[in-house]
């Protein structure tokens, strides 16, 4: 029986090559998108699933409440760990504090080989290894980190630092961090084999930090300071209630809140974050900063997109197969008289659907491979085609295939199997009795989606163009900057660097100052503005620079003056800050002062607003001030420079000269400069990604919908061959015939537009709400996309109708 079904199915698929191809193509577009997105979701959800007791491991994090909103920090105050340990809660099996450190270099003195910027180094103690189960290759889990100046290495690092040596041989050998911290290797653990965010490679005993320290965090042990370098994992005991721990933490937080801060609405709370939440929670992040992370929300919208594309493919299928039903009516009648039951017919048709779905799936797997290459920017590094061999992914794919088969095959199967043999043989199922109402609804639905996508693409493109072209409020042209090494404390070197750069003929200006006016790095402080009775507490972003810097970027002074020099603490606030404190006239704030802690900071000027970040966000209250305090803590570490002319060919020559100076000054560091324009562009990476994805989605939605339309057009025109013949004999012109044939479909496209326009207007105004600077939701976007859709539809329709209308009527009438 099965063989017979397959045979018939295969021959049917083969006989209707065009329809089958349309079906397969439509489905495979949806399926390949679903495969890739499914793989991404699977990838992101499969992190840290392998730890024994993983469901009992939590990270403790901090959330800050303030009038400006909530802020999150993955770290906790240093004393918290000890406080928790002292409580000896029965709910807590382990309390494992650790501190992330960023050594400049590590050296194997035996071989005198030096390794720069070792990543994923932490200070911790034995509790860490009691929380996370590692495979110990050498050394003892309980004692390895007991002593000061001991270190446990991962297998990878051990092999890197001690190539060609047995692991047991390197026990007791030493590595030196930053030329000063000597540590003895007391153990080697295997790296985790599975996907994990617990990426640490070098574990220095916490007691080492007490003596010599690479991070200030360890020794700044007070309840007021939260540093993301100080983190805390806990493992709950079996059957412990996490809410109990949460309650205890809340209590601790309350005890140690500063009443002065609470009075102005600032407080912090500790949260326990399950290990499973680590990977996708962007509030707290993970430990590998090179890895761009997605969020659950992104995954959800991608899944929605995949769902839509699959649905479009299924709709195609339903449309084409019910449209074809009449041609198969005879077969159904015969089968029924030969004794087939309806169930058997339903299964036969489902079998055919499955065959097509399977063909589509095979094609999609190939497409998925290509898509993974194409979307390499969107896909995490660890995700590659190998994931498709994972048994769970395969199960998922099979389930998807089955549901697609059911979704797209069940309704046509029901329609087809309903035919009664008697009526089929009496030819009562004449084509015209099939109104195809459902098909029209479905086609309209497809076009609504395609139309929404087109409108969205146009608007997102317009918005993106708008914010990228809009004036930031300062000059960016021909300006570039680079940061001098942050760990270099010598201001002498920097000053010499600037002097040497001033001799380069291609540069018109060189300034040593703080960060550029717009960047990813922001500094801010809480300030109090007191004016008589009125007191305003707020955050104020700080921009450090001098007069040259101010002029280089063409910042505009509205009132008052600039700070007298760059080491005086005088402030020039921006217009947005005036709004915060409720002053309209810039002149009126001059002479007043800000309070921060015990310091009085005089306001000497007001500057015009400019955007400090992506135009998605508004202008933050900001103050411009000098920052070249002497010594270690200077803010002046960035060198800004402007090219003399717009002759970009010479720029590379000039840059080479700067690099030469760099190499002489900082031979160990890499020279990295950025043009201001590029920095600004990089603010919009996520929007640009959205835009690219949207373009693809639109293309695919149009493609699938057009395939569906093409199928319907082919079907309808063939059904009307006779009518066309008769009309032609009666004197209709080709144009009239085309109009006649196209009218039916254009009506559907038009209806789709009428539905899509308000839907997308609503959705897009919501999207634009997220931008402080937004482009207009112009009427022409809707008209343009409507016209585009109609033109595309017309083109598709014309492919078939022109031929049909030109056909010789004698032939068509004879065949009838």
């Amino acid at each position, binding site marked *: *029986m099965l063989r*017979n079904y397959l*045979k*018939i199915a295969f*021959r*049917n698929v083969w*006989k209707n090559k065009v329809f089958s191809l349309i079906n397969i193509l439509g489905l495979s577009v949806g399926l390949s998108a679903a495969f890739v997105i499914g793989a991404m979701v699977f990838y992101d959800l499969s992190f840290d699933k392998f730890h024994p007791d993983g469901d009992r491991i939590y990270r403790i994090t901090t959330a800050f409440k303030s009038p400006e909103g909530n802020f999150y920090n993955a770290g906790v105050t240093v004393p918290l760990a000890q406080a928790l340990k002292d409580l000896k809660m029965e709910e807590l099996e382990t309390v494992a504090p650790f501190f992330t450190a960023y050594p400049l270099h590590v050296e194997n003195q035996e071989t005198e080989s030096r390794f720069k910027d070792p990543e994923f180094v932490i200070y911790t103690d034995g509790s860490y290894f009691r929380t996370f189960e590692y495979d110990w290759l050498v050394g003892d889990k309980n004692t390895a980190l007991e002593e000061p100046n001991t270190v446990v290495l991962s297998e990878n690092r051990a092999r890197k630092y001690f190539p060609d040596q047995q692991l047991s041989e390197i026990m007791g050998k030493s590595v030196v961090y930053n030329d000063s911290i000597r540590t003895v290797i007391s153990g080697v653990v295997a790296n985790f084999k599975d996907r994990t965010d617990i990426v640490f490679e070098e574990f220095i005993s916490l007691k080492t930090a007490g003596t010599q320290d690479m991070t200030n965090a360890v020794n700044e042990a007070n309840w007021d300071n939260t540093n993301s370098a100080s983190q805390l994992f806990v493992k709950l005991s079996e059957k412990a209630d996490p809410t109990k721990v949460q309650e205890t933490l809340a209590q601790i937080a309350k005890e140690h809140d500063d009443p002065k801060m609470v009075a102005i609405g600032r407080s912090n709370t500790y949260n326990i974050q399950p290990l499973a939440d680590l990977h996708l929670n962007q509030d707290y992040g993970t430990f590998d900063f090179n890895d761009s992370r997605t969020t659950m929300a992104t995954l959800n919208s991608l899944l929605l997109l995949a769902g839509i594309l699959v649905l479009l493919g299924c709709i195609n299928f339903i449309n084409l197969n019910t449209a074809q039903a009449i041609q198969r009516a*005879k*077969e159904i*009648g*015969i*089968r*029924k*008289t*030969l*004794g*087939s*039951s309806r169930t*058997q017919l339903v299964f036969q048709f489902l079998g055919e659907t499955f065959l097509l779905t399977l063909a589509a799936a095979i094609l999609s797997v190939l497409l998925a491979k290509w898509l993974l290459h194409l979307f390499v920017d969107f896909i995490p590094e660890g995700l590659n085609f190998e994931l498709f061999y994972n048994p769970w992914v395969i199960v998922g794919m099979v389930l998807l295939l089955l549901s697609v088969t059911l979704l797209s095959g069940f309704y046509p199967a029901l329609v087809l199997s309903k035919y*009664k*043999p*008697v009526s089929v*043989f*009496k030819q009562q199922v004449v084509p015209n009795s099939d109104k195809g109402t459902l098909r029209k609804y479905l086609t309209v639905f497809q076009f609504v989606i395609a139309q929404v996508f087109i409108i969205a693409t146009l608007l997102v493109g317009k918005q993106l163009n708008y914010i990228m072209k809009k004036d930031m409020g300062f000059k960016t042209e021909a300006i570039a900057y680079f940061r001098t090494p942050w760990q270099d404390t010598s201001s002498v070197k920097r000053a010499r660097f600037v002097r040497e750069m001033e001799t380069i003929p291609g540069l018109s200006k060189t300034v040593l100052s703080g960060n550029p006016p717009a960047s990813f790095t922001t500094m801010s402080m809480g300030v109090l503005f007191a004016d008589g009775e009125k007191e305003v507490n707020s955050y104020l972003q700080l921009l450090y620079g001098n007069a040259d810097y101010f002029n280089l970027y063409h910042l505009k002074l509205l009132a008052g003056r600039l700070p007298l020099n760059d080491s005086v603490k005088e402030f020039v606030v921006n217009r947005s800050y005036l709004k915060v404190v409720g002053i309209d006239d810039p002149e009126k704030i001059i002479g007043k002062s800000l309070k921060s802690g015990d310091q009085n900071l005089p306001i000497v000027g007001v500057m015009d607003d400019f955007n400090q970040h992506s135009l998605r966000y508004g202008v933050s209250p900001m103050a411009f001030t000098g920052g070249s305090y002497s010594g270690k803590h200077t803010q002046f570490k960035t060198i800004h420079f402007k090219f003399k002319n717009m002759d970009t060919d010479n720029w590379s020559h000039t840059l080479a000269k700067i690099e030469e100076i760099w190499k002489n000054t900082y031979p160990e560091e890499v020279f990295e400069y950025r043009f201001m324009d590029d920095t600004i562009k990089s603010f919009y990476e996520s929007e640009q990604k959205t835009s690219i994805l949207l373009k693809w989605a639109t293309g695919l939605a149009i493609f699938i919908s057009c395939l569906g339309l093409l199928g319907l057009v082919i079907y309808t025109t063939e059904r009307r061959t006779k009518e066309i013949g008769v009309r032609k004999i009666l004197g209709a012109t080709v144009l009239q015939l085309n109009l006649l044939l196209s009218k039916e479909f254009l009506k559907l496209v038009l209806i789709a537009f009428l539905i899509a326009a308000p839907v997308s207007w609503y959705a897009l105004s919501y999207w634009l709400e997220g931008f402080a600077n937004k482009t207009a939701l112009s009427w022409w976007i809707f008209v343009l996309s409507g016209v585009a859709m109609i033109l595309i539809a017309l083109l598709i329709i014309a492919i078939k109708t022109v031929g049909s209308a030109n056909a010789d009527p004698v032939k068509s009438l004879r065949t009838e």
Partner: protein
Amino acid sequence: MLLQLKNVFKWVNTGGQRIFLLKDINLEVEEGEFISVMGPSGSGKSTLLNVIGMLDTFDEGEYHFLDESVHTLKEKYRSNLYKEYIGFVFQSYHLLDDLTVAENLEMPLLYKKVKGSERKALVADILDRFNIVGKKDLFPSQLSGGQQQLVGVARALIASPKLILADEPTGNLNSQQSEEIMELFKKLNKEDGVTIIQVTHSEKNAAYGSRVINLLDGRKV
């Protein structure tokens, strides 16, 4: 008795009027009979055949087939009944275009859930009996009308039904082919004892049968 129709009525309502397709039909068929149903177009011949074949329902009356009351049976049991006992032959053959001769012949057996090896034997057997072994791998479109109808008859017979219902089996054939098919029917009736009910326009074909039923406007005359 093979089957019995008692006071069977069938009608459709058009424009407030009731038009009778079958009107008070009473019919008894014994096993081994060869009956020809005759009458002008629209007299209800095919409808009667479809009712007997359980492909069509009726509105009033009783129908007994081998002691089963067909009119009270559910669709599923009805289809089991006709699958088991009835073979159909059509004027336009109704072979499945996508299947070869052998596959067409196999189809009723598949739906009766006959085992693979037995199916093969039965198909080989019937191919042999009808002398079409050489055509077994051809598709219907590669055969002449007469040959197609031969396959149609063979397909109706393969599951060894008690009753064959033939709706103008020679309607699309020339006179020589007609004769061959009718001779075949006669032989099946005489030698194998298969009951046959055929609808025909031709007196000559009707003469092959043992009894003639005449219909006019849905009524037996």
